[in-house]
């Protein structure tokens, strides 16, 4: 049963990802990206890491997607198709990406010990929280605080950059 769900999720991920990078309409591309993110959170649920799935749903599918949609609405002329590279040149990136992907998958399948079987484990929120705030040698309290400062810096930086004055443009012209 879980196997079938995994393959359905994989098909959804790959199909909508391809549609997201090839469609000519930017707004549709954001919607396809949203489906990809939702399916990835389903993969986290299957891997029994429920906290990560919740974070994926709330931060990615909630926060980042809303940001991207607002940016699209504010900048894009909706309905105007995206510019694409000419078809005869499209063969180069297709060949390069398929070739490197095939090489990587070959490397994955030929890696020794990749089929190791361990007992199933469920990651609970308590474990994650204790690790994140632990002062022990394998604790992560320092990266946790660094990330919080980084998020604050990014927030201030985004505000400062996005509220620059418009007059600069007129002086230049």
């Amino acid at each position, binding site marked *: 049963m879980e196997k079938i769900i995994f393959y359905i999720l994989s098909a959804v991920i*790959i199909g909508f990802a391809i549609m997201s*990078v090839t469609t000519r309409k930017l707004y549709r591309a954001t919607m396809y*990206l949203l489906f990809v993110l939702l399916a990835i959170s389903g993969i986290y649920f299957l891997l029994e890491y429920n906290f990560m799935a919740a974070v*994926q749903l709330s931060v*990615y599918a909630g926060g980042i997607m809303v940001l991207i949609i607002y940016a699209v609405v504010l900048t894009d002329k909706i309905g105007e198709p995206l*510019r694409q590279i000419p078809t005869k040149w499209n063969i180069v990136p297709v060949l390069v990406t398929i070739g490197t992907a095939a090489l990587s*998958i070959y490397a994955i399948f030929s890696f020794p010990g990749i089929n190791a079987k361990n007992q199933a484990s469920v990651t609970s929120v308590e474990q994650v929280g204790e690790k994140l705030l632990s002062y022990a040698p394998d604790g992560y309290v320092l990266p946790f605080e660094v990330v919080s400062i980084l998020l604050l810096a*990014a927030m201030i930086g985004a505000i400062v950059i996005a509220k620059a004055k418009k007059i600069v443009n007129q002086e230049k012209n």
Partner: protein
Amino acid sequence: MIEGVGLPEILSVTTILFFIGVYGFFTRTNLIAMLMSLELMVNAEAVNFVAINKYLSPAFLQGQIFSLFIIALAAAETALALAIILHLYRLTSNIDVREVKELKY
């Protein structure tokens, strides 16, 4: 871990997802579309961290903690990139990388 699904299958799916993102990054010229391709790549990375941790060393939590940090960094990166894109659009009314040269010099 998922019953009946091995680590190579999950890694194959994330590899394909990553290279779809690379393809989008190569071929798109709109800055927001390029950023969306970048999101695909970052997501593939995060799934890799969690899957490898779950299958190869389930007693430890390193990969699962670091995937949380990856998501936090991706959120900060997206917010900053979109701020830059919006500012650029106000300056030049254009976010196509072939025509925007303001950041070049």
